[in-house]
Every structure is written in structure tokens, then in C-alpha cells.
């Protein structure tokens, strides 16, 4: 029954919007094909290991990661995030008050589609909306405090499977489809899409990096990147992908960034949260 409704909605959306005309929105079918592609291409990688990105692809890297993860450099961010979470705003409320279960163990539910605004709410957007609703300044989307808060939230959610829902709402399906489009669209002077690296070439080297598989790629975020010498958020990860192909990055909280995270996280449904992560 549910599937029939989704299909019906998809058809309506498909006819209403020229963008979607020859591409009926079918997240479940996409999900199956996506999962099949990665598990068939990397039969030796256990499904839950995809969330470990390049370490699931390269034994040498993995050994260094295990050495580093014995006492990982993101611990300071997790602690800072924990403090920030408990610290009262000027109005006496806290970040914890904005979230279900006081924000503990809920990272796997993000991004969420918000029926009120008709938009996708990523964890980072939710944090800033919480701050603004309480008369506090929003955080920089890239790193520092935003990375600390989300690192703490991810840390308390480790091991919980991604549970992204695409409700029966044409706006949600459109956001999902736009996210998919963003993921596969070539951009920048180098003419690369996200998929060029993370679907067509995971495990291969581009310049100096071992490319991570797209499957589960949002599960480890935020990450401490040695190349950055510090923490970075999902926004920072997307922005750096853009600039690496000589595309101008979008602003944090941009609709397209929300949508692509929605798409990728839906593709990762069932895979465990592994963030915060450590990456080369």
C-alpha cells in the first residue's frame, strides 16, 4: 500500500516538474541498486566497514588509522561538544533542549525532512536553527564549534544504524532527487562529479588520496583530517570536494548541500554511525 502511494506521488511529481519528467522518484529502487553496486564491486569489504571510508579499501592506511584511533585526535572536539551541549544559553535553555532524547544517540536520524518548512534539516542546520531560535548566534558551518557539537552528537550515536526517512511528501521526494542530481552532476573546471570519485573510483588514488566509497560516506562525519590539521564538518567536506575540482563551494546550509547529504545518508540506511572519524 505504502509503496503504491509513493509510486503514485512520484508519478504526480514526475509529471508536475519537468526536471523529474523522465526520472520517476523511487528511493527504494535507488537504494537497492546503490547497495548492490558497492557490495558487488567490493565483495571482501564487510557491509558495516564501508563507513570507514578509505580504511575499508587500503590495508596500509587501515593500520595507520588503527594506530591513530587508539587515542584519536578528535577526542578534544567530543569533550568540547559535550560542554557546549550542557552550557545554558542566555535564556537558560540548552542545545540539548532542542533535540529528541536531549540530543543523545540521535545522529542517525539526520538529515530529516521537515514538513513545516518543506526543507531538509541536516544535523548542522538543526544546531544553528536551535541557536537562532534561542537568540544565540549561529555557528560557522565549517569547523570549530560546529564540528565539536556534531562530533559529540555522533559519538553518542556510534553504532546506531542510519535511519533516514523520506516521507510521502512531494517536497521530500524533490529534495531527495535534487540531492541525487547534485551528487551525479559534473562541476568545476575539472569537470568531476561527486560520483566520479566516490562511485567510479573508490579505493583508487587521485593525486595522493585513497578515495572513499560513497556508500556510508556521511556516517563518519564530522572528521579530524590530518590534511586540515583539525576537525571539519559535513559542510567542510562538501566544500573541499567542490574546491578540489575547482568549483566554487556553496555556503553552509545551502539547500543543495542539505539535499545531497539527505540523498547520501538515505543510501547509507542501516549502516552504523562511526563519527567522529579520523581521516588522512
Amino acid at each position, binding site marked *: 500500500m505504502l509503496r503504491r502511494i509513493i509510486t503514485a506521488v512520484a508519478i504526480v511529481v514526475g509529471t508536475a516538474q519537468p526536471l523529474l519528467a523522465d526520472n520517476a522518484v523511487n528511493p527504494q529502487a535507488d537504494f537497492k541498486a546503490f547497495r548492490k553496486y558497492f557490495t558487488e564491486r567490493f565483495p571482501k569489504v564487510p557491509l558495516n566497514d564501508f563507513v570507514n571510508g578509505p580504511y575499508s579499501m587500503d590495508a596500509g592506511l587501515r593500520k595507520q588509522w588503527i594506530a591513530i584511533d587508539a587515542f584519536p585526535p578528535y577526542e578534544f572536539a567530543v569533550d568540547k561538544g559535550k560542554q557546549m551541549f550542557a552550557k545554558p544559553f542566555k535564556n537558560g535553555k540548552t542545545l540539548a533542549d532542542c533535540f529528541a532524547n536531549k540530543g543523545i544517540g540521535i545522529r542517525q536520524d539526520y538529515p530529516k525532512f521537515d514538513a513545516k518548512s518543506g526543507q531538509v534539516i541536516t544535523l548542522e542546520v538543526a544546531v544553528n536553527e536551535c541557536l537562532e531560535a534561542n537568540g544565540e548566534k549561529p555557528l560557522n558551518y565549517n569547523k570549530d564549534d560546529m564540528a565539536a557539537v556534531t562530533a559529540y552528537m555522533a559519538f553518542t550515536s556510534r553504532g546506531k544504524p542510519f535511519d533516514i526517512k523520506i516521507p510521502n511528501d512531494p517536497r521530500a521526494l524533490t529534495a531527495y532527487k535534487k540531492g541525487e542530481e547534485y551528487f*551525479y*552532476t*559534473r562541476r*568545476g573546471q575539472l*569537470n568531476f562529479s561527486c560520483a566520479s570519485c566516490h*562511485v567510479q573510483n573508490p579505493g583508487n588514488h587521485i593525486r595522493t588520496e585513497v578515495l572513499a566509497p560513497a556508500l556510508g560516506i556521511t556516517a563518519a562525519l564530522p572528521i579530524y583530517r590530518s590534511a586540515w590539521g583539525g576537525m571539519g564538518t559535513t559542510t567542510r567536506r562538501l566544500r573541499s570536494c567542490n574546491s578540489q575540482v575547482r*568549483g*566554487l563551494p556553496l555556503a553552509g546550509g545551502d539547500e543543495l548541500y542539505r539535499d545531497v547529504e539527505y540523498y547520501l545518508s538515505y543510501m547509507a540506511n542501516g549502516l552504523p554511525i562511526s563519527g567522529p572519524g579520523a581521516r588522512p
Partner: protein
Amino acid sequence: MRNRHLILIAVALSVIAFAGVAFAASADDFKVALAKAEAADKQAYAFKNQWTTTEDDLKKAKAAAAAGKFDDAVKLAQQAEALANASIVQAKEQEKLWTEAVIR
């Protein structure tokens, strides 16, 4: 003798002035080139597909103009325009082409 000298100087000056008009770009030339480049860049922005190289050239063009190097400034602005136009072509092409890359 003296007259001839004066004439020579006058000729020399006119050659320089002529060269200025014919071969060197002016501030106005730059304004035109910049306006074109910025219009194209604005369109690329509407596609959310600006290239960093376009932005770099625009910055460099403005810097060259500020330093009075209008030849360079015009060249850079034209290059920026070309890059912006290429990014627009890319964005338009990709509106359909992206679906070919999707895992099915």
C-alpha cells in the same frame, strides 16, 4: 634646424599617442570587459556552478586595472568571461547528462 627638431619630437609624440589608442586598452575597455565577465559569472551563480578559476581571474583583472595595467586587466576579464561561459555550458549540459551516471 631647430624646427626640424620640433617636428621630429611632434612626430614621435604622435606615434606614442597613436599607439596608445590603437594597441593599449583603456579603463573604459576594461569596464566593458568586466561587465561582460560579471554578467556571465552572475549567470553561472544562478546555476550554482561558478568555477574558482573564474573568480580568481576576476580578482586578478580588478587588481591589474587598479594598478593601471589595462591590457592585462582586459585579457583577464575576457578569460574570466570565457570560463564563466564554459561553466554555464557545463551546467546546462549536466541538467540532462547527470542521469547517465546514476547507478541503476
